[in-house]
Every structure is written in structure tokens, then in C-alpha cells.
């Protein structure tokens, strides 16, 4: 068998190459994707505030009389964690308890007495000593040095808290990063906490001092306890995130049963990640399903070619007394000699790619090798099971097989039903049938193309028959003869091109949607932001910088819209909407329709409105009309209020003049939006700039304005695109599309080579009748071109139509980012690869034509 394989080493090598590449893809791609999905989970948690990703437990009231009991509480809560949550819990223990008391004689000033677990290891005393035990009604406390300075407190001072006193024994500085886990959860220790009560003209200031735990635990005051179980972002993966999320409600219930209060935002953060993960997995599954189908098709083509090449050898063995199992085994062994080492090599090479190994990583390569062997056994057995087929080689057979027609109808029906189900149910269900629906539809389209092909060829043949030149007619005649063996190549080529086009178009659509999202986030080519306000000279510098051709200043800040009892959190934007609208004309985003138009004037209202919006240069807009009210557009959450008060950029009354839901360059984080269509010169903290980013950066450097943050669309686009899930999805789509194009080319090549002997025989015969080399090339190109072009066109059209066909079934809104909008599919994205496949195939046919004639 080894010598039989060696005799057909070229085809064996082709088969080995196909199995190797397919095994490599099967082994490496899932690893890479899983690693990226895990990276996405890590990014999601790591980029969220640690306080929102942790699992918190609170206890309001007395929990125990000693610190030891509080520490034991941590063990108790951790013991209640479901296994999935326990596996991702960080072992670092964070717990604290305390009480907040008003400072005697000072309005809006409070002191929080707090015990924090192992705080001594996290701070460095810059003055004094750590606090000692409680002495009756007197506590000893230590304060952060910066907070003490802000409160004008020094070591040795005593703070009266009603009948209690707190004596400052030391001042400390925090050790380590302020964003590290410990300080993120105990930020109140490092500074003065500010809180504003609705209706209050002044903030409440809270100073936090650390004190002796046992003394505080034994105090009579009502204490508030907090245990924090941090989640290690590195331990949350794409595979356990779902279990972690599903464990949260049960954990919360158990805590509530115990009388404790759970708090976490993990149950809001993880679903966002899981939604994106599900969308990515669904799309990748469609692509990989198609890729697997095409890989198997290409392998089947190579095996068929190998079986055809071995046919004479095996026929001879059959005539010499080999039984059918003998022959099938011989075919299988030859395929195995090529496929098994290749699959092993692909699997080993895939192992070098970092990433967790999923079952498909281990099962894929052996399944591919097994498929190659099974194909070989089946083909050989089919070819040699009867003494001689009921046909002669010199007569074209066009037998209609009822079984084949039934199978074709079944595949077409399943494809259509699958797509319809996918549209209604979506891919999120994880149903493998739905995942396979798009490749199945591509297969159905290939079957239809095969049935349509003779109908298209017939008029071409009639046309060619009327022409004087013989070459077109001969070429099309050969195309018609070759059609009987073209089923498998078309069934491989069309799905490859269709799914590849779908992947490429989707990847392009995602990238353009993400770029749109970047524009929505930045609001212009460049956004310059400074929390402490942008000084007028910096505005002038940027305006005069070379290459800058548009600057629109804006005041963007947070405030509380004073409506109802608690108020509503809102983002205020004071900006010249006309100027901003003109600036956005250079980019892909625009102001919402109607927003750039002048606000309707209310004759009964004396407040400034449209005129104020053009008062950028006068600088009076911010000052005028404050007493009567300022015209503004408000988000739907505030639309019911005709006017209300806000505290930023100054205390003023907002007069509701219309609705706005979003503005480019402004994020509201779920709060309301208030747009005042006039700049506020005193509070300008944002510039929307179009022009040269380097010039803007140079101007900012020259002005030495520290704390200025410059964001460009390119940077934001890179950031969005660089997120693990986004990049994984787009990379997977690109790799799969590229691989599919490669397999499409291989399928076309194998189909061309399969007909090589017959073509060569025909061309040599025609050569003796006077066929020139040029005519031979034309004949060969025309033999290949009709089916190739039909298949390619059908594949590309189906691929580009798949997003519309699948509709809401494949929801990628989670990846288009805020304001990304629906996926825009451009034909240009899919055409290069398809055109490349066609051109290379036709070029090979053109060159092969002369070679076949000369052989």
C-alpha cells in the first residue's frame, strides 16, 4: 500500500496538505478564539470599577462584639458561594465596619469611625502613631494626611461627636495604587467624601478615621458592616462566566435569608459580556460550520481525485482476484497514509497556539483524517462494487436518479426551513441545526446552481454554434460534458464563496460600525477635554494651529436635574449647535434630525434661545437669561417637565424646548441629557476639533495645560477594535474568509485537474485536426468559465444577501458599539477574494490549455 501511495504521491501530498491545513485550523482557531473570548471576559471585568465587579455583603446593625466575629463572617459568606463563584473569587479578604457621626458644632461635617481589616499593612504613618484601644467614650483615630489637611485637623486634635470624642493620634498615606483592589474598595479612607442631599445648598463632607476594631465593635452605636469578595478577572472565562452569573441570584437569596444584604453589579456586567460572547460565538459557529463543510468538501475532492487515479491499479487488483473489502481497505490505507500524519502534524502545530483546548480542538483533526479515510473507502467501494457499470465511456450519461432528486429537495427544504427558524429564533439558542442553516442554505444554492447550469449553457451553445470560430463551440461543448462531474466541486466552491463573502462583508460592516461608534464617542476628528476647564488662550492656540480647520467649544458636565424628590442624574451640554452641526459635516455622523434647526421661539417667554446659541464670541450667552430660564433640549426622561432647575454649569432654570436622545461626543451613562444650544464660556471643558491631531497636541503641550486629554477618532477606533472580543471576532471572520477563499481556489483547481486526462485527450485529437495553441487555451477557458462564473456569482450574491436573509437571527448590535447602528454591508468587501479566485482559476485554465495540448 505504501508503494501504491508512493505511485500517487502528488495527489497524496495534496490530500495531506488539505488535511494538514484543515487540522491546523480546527486545532488552532478554536484555541485562539477561546483565548480571545477569555480575554474579553478579563477586559470586561478589569475595565469595570472593582467596586462593581466584587460581591459585597452588608450587615446593618450589630453583627458581633469583636473583630474576630467579623473575620469569621468573611469565612461564613465565602462558604455560601456556589462552586462556580468560589472558583473565581479572589482570596484577598476585605472587610470593614463603622459608623458615621456628625461633628458637633459643624454643619454638614461628619466623621466616620471605621475599622478596616489589615489596614495597617496598606498605609504608612507620616505623623503620630496608630490609634490605640477605646477609652470609655473616647476613640483614638488615624486620618489620611490629605483629608486631615482639608479638614484642618492635626495630630492630637480631639473631635467631638456628641457624647463621644475622637482623638487624632496619627496621619497616614496610602501605600500602593489608588486603583488597586484594596483602595478601590476603601477610597473614603484617602480623602474627604462629598455627598449632596437634594434641595441642600451645600455638600455634606465626611471624614473617615480608622480606629480600634474591638472597641468599635463593642460600642453602642449602630454599626454598618461590609465584607467584600473580589472577583479575580483572570479566573472568569468564556466557559464559566455563565455559571458565575447564574450563581449570583442563589447567593443573594442565601444572604438575604441570613439577614445580610448582598450588593454587586456583576449581574449587570456579565450579561453584557455574555450577550457579546453569544453573538460572537454564534457568528463564529456559522463561519466555522461553513469552513468545516468546505474543508470536508475539498478533502472529498482530493480523495475522489486520488481514487480516480488509483482506479486502474485497483481495477487490475479486482480482476486479479481482490475482493471488495480488499480494494476498499487498499483505498482507505492509501488515504490514511496521507491523512493521518497530516492530521497529527496539524494537531501538533495547533498545540503551539496559546489558548484553552476545547473538545473540538481534540476531535477536529482525527475526525478530518477519519473523514478522508471514509471518503476513500466509500469511493473505492462504489467504483468497484459492480463488475462493470451500466454505461460506456463513449456515451455521455445523464441518468436521473430519484434518490438524488429526493436528497436535493430535502437539502433545499432544510436550508430554507433552517434559515426561517434562524430568523425567528436567533442563533443565541445554540441549536446546532440553526448554526448549520446558513451553510445548508449555501449547499441548497449550489444544488440549484447545478440544476440551472444546463439551462444557461444551452443558449450559449446555440450562440456559439452560429459563430464562425470553432473554439467557443468546442469549449462550451466540453463544459457541457464536464458538468456531469462538477457536482462535488460546485457543492464545495459555492458554499466556500458564499460563507467567505458573508464573513468578509460582516467583518467590514463591523469595522465600519465600530468606526462610526468611535465618531459617536469622540464627536469630531479630535476631542480635547480638561476637567478643570480649558483656558481661552488654549482655545485660541488650537484654533490657530496649522492644519486645524474647525473648533467648537462646549461645556459638558454632570448635574442633578431637580425634578421629583430625589432629582435625576443628567449630563448637561452647552454648545453652539449650528457650529457643531457644520463641524460634523466632515464626518460620518450628524446631529439628530431637527436638532440643528433653530429652536421654536415662544412669544410668551423672554428667555434667550436661538440668539443665545450664536453668542459664542460675545461670551454673554452664559450670563443672559439665567433668571428667566434657558431654552434647552432634554432627553425623554425629562420631557414631561416644562422647566426645572439644574446646578451646573451654573444654577439656572431650564426651559424644555424639545427632545434630544443623544449627541455625538457625549455619553450619558444611562442618565438624562440636557442640551443648551449656546456655549458657556466660563465652563468650557471640551473642544470638538477637526484637523491635524499632531498640531492640536503640540498646541496643548505649548500651553502647558496639565490634565488635558486628547482623543482622536483613530485612537478611539483602535481602542474599540482592539478590545479582545471585537478583535477576536473580526480576526476570526477574516481568517475564515481567507481560508474559505483558499479552499475555493483549491476546489476549483482539483476540479480542473480531475478533468485533465479527458481534456488532454480531446485537445490532442483536436490538435491533429489543426487546433492552435491559442485556440486550445480559449477552449479550456471556455470549458471552465461558465460553471466557475455561475458558481462565483451565485456564491457572492448569496454571501452578500445572507445578512439580510438571516435578519435579526444574527444580532451583532452588541459589537457595533454605542451609536454604531445596523451593519452596513458593502459588496466591495467580498468581491476581491471572489474575483481573485476566478481570475487565478481562469489564468490556470488559460495556461493549462496549452500544456494539455502539448502533453
Amino acid at each position, binding site marked *: 500500500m505504501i*508503494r*501504491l501511495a*508512493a*505511485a500517487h504521491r502528488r495527489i497524496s501530498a495534496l490530500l495531506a496538505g488539505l488535511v494538514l491545513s484543515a487540522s491546523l485550523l480546527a486545532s488552532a482557531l478554536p484555541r485562539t478564539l477561546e483565548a480571545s473570548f477569555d480575554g474579553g471576559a478579563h477586559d470586561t471585568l478589569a475595565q469595570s470599577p472593582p467596586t462593581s465587579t466584587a460581591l459585597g455583603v452588608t450587615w446593618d446593625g450589630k453583627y458581633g462584639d469583636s473583630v474576630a466575629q467579623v473575620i469569621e463572617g468573611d469565612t461564613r459568606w465565602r462558604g455560601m458561594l456556589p462552586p462556580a463563584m468560589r472558583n473565581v473569587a479572589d482570596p484577598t479578604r476585605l472587610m470593614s465596619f463603622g459608623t458615621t457621626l456628625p461633628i458637633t458644632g459643624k454643619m454638614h461635617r461628619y466623621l466616620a469611625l471605621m475599622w478596616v481589616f489589615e489596614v495597617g499593612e496598606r498605609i504608612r504613618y507620616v505623623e503620630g502613631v496608630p490609634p490605640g484601644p477605646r477609652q470609655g467614650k473616647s476613640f483614638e483615630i488615624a486620618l489620611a494626611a490629605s483629608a486631615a489637611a482639608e479638614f484642618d485637623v492635626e495630630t492630637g486634635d480631639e473631635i467631638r461627636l456628641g457624647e463621644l470624642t475622637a482623638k487624632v493620634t496619627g496621619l497616614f498615606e496610602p501605600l500602593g495604587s489608588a486603583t488597586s483592589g484594596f483602595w478601590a474598595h476603601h477610597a473614603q479612607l484617602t480623602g474627604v467624601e462629598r455627598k449632596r442631599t437634594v434641595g441642600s445648598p451645600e455638600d455634606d463632607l465626611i471624614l473617615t478615621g480608622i480606629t480600634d476594631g474591638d472597641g468599635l465593635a463593642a460600642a453602642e452605636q449602630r454599626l454598618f458592616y461590609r465584607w467584600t469578595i473580589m472577583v479575580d478577572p483572570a479566573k472568569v472565562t468564556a466557559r464559566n462566566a455563565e455559571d458565575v452569573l447564574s450563581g449570583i441570584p442563589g447567593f443573594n437569596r442565601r444572604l438575604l435569608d441570613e439577614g445580610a444584604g448582598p450588593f454587586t453589579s456583576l449581574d449587570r456586567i456579565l450579561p453584557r459580556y455574555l450577550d457579546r460572547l453569544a453573538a460572537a460565538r454564534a457568528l463564529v459557529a456559522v463561519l466555522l460550520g461553513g469552513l468545516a463543510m468546505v474543508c470536508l468538501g475539498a478533502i472529498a475532492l482530493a480523495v475522489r481525485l486520488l481514487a480516480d487515479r488509483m482506479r*486502474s*491499479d485497483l481495477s*487490475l*487488483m*479486482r*480482476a*486479479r*482476484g*481482490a*475482493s*471488495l473489502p*480488499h480494494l476498499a481497505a487498499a483505498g482507505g490505507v492509501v488515504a490514511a497514509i496521507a491523512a493521518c500524519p497530516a492530521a497529527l502534524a496539524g494537531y501538533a502545530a495547533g498545540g503551539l497556539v496559546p489558548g484553552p483546548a476545547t473538545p473540538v480542538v481534540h476531535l477536529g483533526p482525527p475526525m478530518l483524517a477519519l473523514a478522508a479515510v471514509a471518503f476513500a473507502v466509500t469511493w473505492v467501494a462504489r467504483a468497484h462494487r459492480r*463488475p*462493470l457499470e*451500466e*454505461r*460506456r465511456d463513449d*456515451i*455521455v*450519461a*445523464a*441518468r*436521473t436518479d*430519484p434518490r438524488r432528486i429526493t436528497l436535493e429537495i430535502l437539502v433545499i427544504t432544510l436550508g430554507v426551513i433552517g434559515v426561517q427558524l434562524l430568523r425567528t429564533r436567533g442563533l443565541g439558542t445554540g441549536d446546532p441545526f440553526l448554526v448549520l442553516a446558513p451553510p445548508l442554505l449555501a449547499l441548497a444554492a449550489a444544488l440549484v446552481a447545478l440544476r440551472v447550469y444546463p439551462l444557461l449553457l444551452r443558449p450559449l451553445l446555440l450562440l456559439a454554434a452560429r459563430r464562425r470560430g470553432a473554439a467557443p463551440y468546442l469549449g462550451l461543448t466540453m463544459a457541457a460534458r464536464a458538468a456531469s462531474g462538477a457536482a462535488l466541486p460546485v457543492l464545495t466552491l459555492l458554499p466556500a464563496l458564499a460563507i467567505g463573502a458573508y464573513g468578509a462583508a460582516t467583518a467590514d460592516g463591523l469595522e465600519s460600525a465600530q468606526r462610526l461608534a468611535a465618531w459617536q464617542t469622540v464627536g469630531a476628528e479630535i476631542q480635547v477635554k480638561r476637567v478643570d476647564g480649558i483656558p481661552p488662550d488654549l482655545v485660541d492656540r488650537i484654533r490657530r494651529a496649522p492644519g486645524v480647520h474647525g473648533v467648537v467649544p462646549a461645556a459638558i458636565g454632570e448635574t442633578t436635574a431637580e425634578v421629583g424628590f430625589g432629582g435625576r442624574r443628567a449630563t448637561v451640554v452647552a454648545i453652539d449647535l449650528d457650529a457643531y452641526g457644520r463641524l460634523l459635516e466632515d464626518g460620518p455622523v450628524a446631529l439628530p434630525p431637527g436638532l440643528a434647526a433653530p429652536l421654536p421661539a415662544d412669544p410668551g417667554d423672554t428667555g434667550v434661545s436661538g440668539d443665545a446659541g450664536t453668542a459664542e464670541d460675545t461670551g454673554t450667552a452664559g450670563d443672559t437669561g439665567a433668571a428667566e430660564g434657558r431654552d434647552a433640549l432634554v432627553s425623554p426622561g425629562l420631557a414631561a417637565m416644562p422647566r426645572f432647575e439644574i446646578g451646573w454649569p451654573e444654577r439656572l432654570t431650564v426651559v424644555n424646548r424639545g427632545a434630544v436622545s443623544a449627541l455625538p461626543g457625549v455619553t450619558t451613562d444611562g442618565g438624562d441629557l440636557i442640551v443648551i444650544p449656546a456655549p458657556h464660556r466660563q465652563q468650557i471643558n471640551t473642544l470638538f476639533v477637526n484637523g491635524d491631531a499632531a498640531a492640536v497636541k503640540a498646541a496643548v503641550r505649548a500651553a502647558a495645560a496639565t490634565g488635558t486629554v486628547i482623543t482622536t477618532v483613530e485612537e478611539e477606533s483602535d481602542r474599540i477594535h482592539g478590545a479582545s472580543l471585537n478583535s477576536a471576532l473580526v480576526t476570526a471572520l477574516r481568517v475564515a474568509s481567507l481560508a474559505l477563499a483558499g479552499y475555493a481556489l483549491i476546489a476549483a483547481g482539483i476540479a480542473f485537474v480531475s478533468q485533465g486526462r479527458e481534456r488532454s485527450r480531446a485537445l490532442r485529437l483536436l490538435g491533429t485536426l489543426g487546433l492552435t495553441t491559442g485556440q486550445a487555451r480559449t477552449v479550456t477557458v471556455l470549458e471552465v468559465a461558465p460553471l466557475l462564473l455561475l458558481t462565483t456569482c451565485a456564491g457572492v450574491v448569496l454571501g452578500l444577501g445572507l445578512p439580510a436573509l438571516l435578519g435579526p437571527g444574527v444580532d451583532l448590535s452588541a459589537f457595533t458599539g454605542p451609536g454604531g447602528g445596523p451593519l452596513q454591508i458593502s459588496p466591495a468587501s467580498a468581491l476581491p477574494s471572489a474575483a481573485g479566485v476566478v481570475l487565478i482559476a481562469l489564468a490556470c485554465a488559460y495556461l493549462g490549455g496549452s500544456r494539455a495540448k502539448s502533453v
Partner: protein
Amino acid sequence: MRNLSELEARAGRPQAAFGEHAHIVCDNLVRIYKTGDAPRGARGGRGSTVEVVALQGLDLLIDKGELVAIVGASGSGKSTLLNVLSGLDVPTAGLARVAGMDLLSMSPRDRLRFRRFVVGFIWQQTARNLLPYLTARENVLLPMRLAGRRRAGRARADELLELLGLADCAGLRPDELSGGQQQRIAVAVALANSPEVLLADEPTGELDSESSEQVFAALREVNRELGVTVVVVTHDALVSEQVDRTIGIRDGRTSSETLRRTSGDGGVTAQEYAVLDRAGRLQLPREFMHALSMERRVRLELERDHIGVWPSDEEGEPDE
């Protein structure tokens, strides 16, 4: 006139079936190749069926140990006949029996056994008879290995190569041998499992006259030494000089036989006969028909020791 009792006794006597004792029997053998759709009007048909009748009621008897040539023009059905006799093809109707095995009713297992042990086959193309990557000895060993006869296989292979004068070629691959040597090794391969019948399809078609002579000498040698029945298909009418009997095939039927006899003085004479089948059908040589302008019908007259055949008298007969 015989009386009734004689007729009854005659009817009751067992009669020998057609070709009962022959080694190869074909009785009214038919082979039709069908391609395309079902006939127009049939369910699902589009009326593009093509039928090629390769054999149309062929009769043939060959005795054990004979060396027979089957000759005919291209397309006459001789290769189809050989494919049927070798078990590579199945006839559509009729009877075909080789060495007592009915070729129409064989199970796949019987057919495999038939190919392994009953017949050996040689094709016209030298390259088609041998696996190019095996040596001559390995090629001879192959049928024995496929049949599970590993013991003494090498000795048998060497013995056959010796018999055919190819002992020194045992270690050579086909591409290192001449065409004649390749065909003689093909003979050895065909004889590897000691078959009773050797079938050869144009074995000398690609050879020069000298090599052809060597191959026929080899075939005569195995026929004589091993008692193997040899059937050679060829389109070369001169082959009749090399064999005992030459059977002509025309339009899928046996049409003539040429017997080669050695006279008492050592001279060889060949006499051609027309074949009369069991239904009384007779094919007249085409040149005879043309010479006397015989068409459509002839007039027969039974004489005492022969039958006369005359062109029909068109003038006195109504034209149909």
C-alpha cells in the same frame, strides 16, 4: 414412418443439453448497455435513452484445452464477450457458463472465486496488466496473495517465469521490460492461481510481429503444457494461423468458424465455415451477398445433400 412407441421411447430418452460437455458455453447471449433517461412517456423520462446492443443472441462452444481465437471488426462485440467470460461484466440475457459456473447467477462470492481461481485475464495494453511499482515476481505473486495463498507463492511465481522464459526478469519493474516481456509476464500473472481458462483481449495489439510471435508462443506453451483453455480475442484475421480454431463475430453474433487442421503429410489446412445457430440462423458472408445482390430475402431449395440459396426473383413476387 416410425410408430408411436418409438417416438415415445425417443422422447423419454435423456437428451444432451446444448454444450453440456463444453468448457465454455454461450447460448443466445445478449448484452445491452443502456444510458440516459427512461423512455419518453415513462415516469420521469425525457426520451433520451440510448441502448447499445453489444451481443445479440451469441452462441459459442469451446472445449476444455482448446486454443481459440475470436476475431471480428471493431465494435463487433468480441471484447464484450471476453468481459462476460471473465466475470468482469454481466450479460443481459441468455446463458454463459465457464468451467461449469453459470455467469448469470453467480453471487458476489462466487464471482470473486471465479476471478481468483477459474479464469486468468490479459489485456491489450501492456501497462494495464501489471502494477508499475511492483517487480515482475511481485506482480505474479499479487493474485496469490489476494487469494490468500502465501505459502509457496514465490516458488510458483518463479516456476511460471521460468516456464515463460523470464526468470532473469523476476526482479525488474515493468518500465524496465520490453512490451513483449511485459505481456509474457502478464501471462504468468494470469496463470498465478492455476486457472482453467485463460482469456486474452488483443494481447499482441501493441506489439511488433516478433514480440507477438513470442507472446503467442507463450500462450501455445501454457495451453499445451498446463492444459489451460485459451481464448484470444483479436481483430487480426491472421491470428487464425496461430490457433486451432478461429471464431468470427459479426454484429454481436458468431458468424463463422475457421478450423485449422494438420493433414497426414504434415501440411496445415484452414477451412472456413458459416455458423448455424440453434434456431437455424445462418450468417452469409457479406461479400457473397454483394456478389449475387442478395437483399432482404433469398430463395432456398433443399437438395439431397445440401441446401441451395438463390437471390429472390423480384419480378414474380409482390413487393411488400
